[in-house]
């Protein structure tokens, strides 16, 4: 029983990191119907920004976590804005496949550019401790503990999810976003500035990935290489599909399902861990092809 609950806690921790990446995937897809493969690399970029900014922030503000995460979100937001302007905007009215290939290109460029010795370099880096390490004991008899960093991960991802939900549903720009997602030409006829809406999506999505990067660094205390975004990014993408791509609560739900099934599958057989997690996903998608919370919408011809 103790081990079961501890694995659940492990899964929730893995899931919260996926959740923040999945939110960005889902949001950009919802509005421009583009799977932004470079999203995982923006996540990586955010983590490295945390690595470089944390010492500076500690010097200026004393505590490092909140200023670092805000600064990293601003920088990755800016990166997303520039990326959209340079790489995706020129292709907006071209075939969707071209944009997809461009997204792959941007992703490969970011990874390899950042791996250059004079940028971030390929070597391991120890991520600074932004919060107090330790565990919250829950039950001594079951040997159950919750790491402080888990509370932080879940707290930040749920907070940002609620904030994003409010932003999309209650603010004017959010309403415009939904209108653009629904029908781009009509929205533009109604006087909505599509450029502004899409730019906003490319600022908000990457900013969330930046926050995810900071949480990743804080949780694991190490940045492997500028290629570190690939796997969390891939799994977060699957989580977004699982939850119903384009659906904001769905992305978070999908991420937690993904994280928890990964933890349990690994505990059953660590050799097959990854495989079992993916089998569960295929099973869910067979029953609900549009994802857990997605609506099935046939392609209109």
């Amino acid at each position, binding site marked *: 029983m*103790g*081990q079961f609950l*501890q*694995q659940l806690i*492990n*899964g929730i*921790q*893995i899931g919260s990191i996926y959740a923040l990446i999945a939110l960005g995937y889902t949001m950009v897809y919802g509005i421009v119907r583009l799977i932004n493969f470079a999203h995982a690399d923006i996540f990586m970029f955010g983590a490295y920004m945390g690595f470089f900014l944390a010492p500076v922030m500690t010097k200026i503000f004393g505590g490092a976590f909140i200023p670092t995460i805000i600064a990293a979100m601003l920088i990755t937001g800016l990166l997303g804005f520039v990326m959209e302007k340079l790489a995706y905007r020129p292709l907006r009215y071209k075939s969707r496949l071209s944009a997809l290939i461009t997204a792959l290109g941007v992703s490969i460029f970011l990874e390899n550019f950042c*791996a250059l010795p004079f940028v971030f370099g*390929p*070597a*391991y*880096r*120890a991520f600074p401790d932004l919060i107090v*390490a330790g*565990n919250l004991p829950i039950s001594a008899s079951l*040997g159950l*503990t919750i*790491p402080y960093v888990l509370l932080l991960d879940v707290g930040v991802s749920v907070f940002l999810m609620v904030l994003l939900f409010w932003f999309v549903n209650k603010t004017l720009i959010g309403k415009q976003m939904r209108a653009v997602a629904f029908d781009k030409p009509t929205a533009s006829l109604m006087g909505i500035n599509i450029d502004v809406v899409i730019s906003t999506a490319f600022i908000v999505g990457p900013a969330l990935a930046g926050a995810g990067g900071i949480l*990743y660094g804080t949780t*694991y*205390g*190490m940045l*492997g*290489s500028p*290629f*570190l975004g690939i*796997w*969390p990014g891939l799994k977060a993408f699957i989580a977004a599909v699982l939850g119903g791509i384009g659906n904001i609560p769905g992305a978070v739900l999908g991420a937690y399902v993904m994280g928890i099934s*990964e*933890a*349990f599958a*690994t*505990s059953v057989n*660590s*050799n097959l*861990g*990854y495989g079992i997690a993916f089998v569960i996903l295929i099973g869910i998608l067979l029953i609900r092809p549009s994802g857990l919370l997605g609506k099935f919408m046939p392609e209109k011809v």
Partner: protein
Amino acid sequence: MRKLFAIVLVCALIAGVGVGCKAKVGVVNLGGIFPMTGASATFGTSSKNGVAMAVEEFNTAGGAMVGGVKTTINYINEDDTGLPEVGASAAQKLINQDKVIGIIGAVMSKVSLAVAPIAQAAGVPEISPTSTNAKVTLVGDYIFRACFIDPFQGTVMANYVYNTLGLKTAAVLYDNGNDYNKGLAEYFKAGFEKLGGKVVDYEAFTDEAKTVDYKPQLTKIKAANPEFLYLPNYYGSVALILKQARGMGLNVPAGGGDGWDSPDLVKIGGTAVEGGIFSNHFSKDDKSPAVQQFVTKYTTKYGEAPDALAALAYDAAGLFLDAFKKSGSIKGSDIRDAMKNTSFVGIGGAYKFDENRDPIKSAVIIKIVNGQQTYLATVNP
């Protein structure tokens, strides 16, 4: 116009002959394949430094006489990024384009296993400084190595833990995507159980480049309550595993193999890796004069103390160049024969190859004390 062309051509010919006449000194290419970028980049840098130093000394000492012509070595270093497929294309490039007389590399067993068949088919001798997986040299008679193999390394650790430390139960957590990690894990388990110990949990993870969260496995290991944790993985994942293990209160002693040998282990792992023990090929604190002389030379040249990767790469290159000099030939089969019968004395002692072209040599046990690698013991085969 045609006249001008003729003049240019004649000039070029004369110039060409002139250069040809001057070239009493021949130069041949030697290739190296190491992970210069990627997760194991420190391995590549150390190895390249070691080979470059050996080549430089060889050239300064006058090179080799090939058919009466003084011949020196031009060293070409390729990056395998730690991936077998990249290593394989680097080998193709070195053999077909650069016409190398031999290849030093690779570091990781999985990359060497991809490079070796290409070298074997082309008849180019390859010597891996540090690939410890037993299968590497079994690829063919052109493939050598300068280090001991996994059965020895895994068994040495099992012996040390059971007999010297007196610990009777152990758990293993290894990367199942890599031949090196798998080999060490298997031989440790077999050795430990043969002595009467018990492996209470045997867990795997999928590729260190993909896995950062080891808590599901560690939760299980903690429940099995072992006295020792064997982690036959590379330094990055070892540091992460131990951080997470210590974070959840799994405080038993831990150990591993030569994949631990990197300054980054302590840099990332901090206090979590304190007290860890691992088997290795070389310790810079070994008091033998050959080792101390090498440490001084290397430190002067590169500004940092050599690790085992640098030492073995230096020896591997030295052994190859010695065979090249003795054979006096750039033919692969001649150099191979000279290597088989080598009596080269390097910093790791005298090299003798067994019938599988694996050297017979000793291992050292190193412990991390106050963040420093400390020499514990030398274990003979």
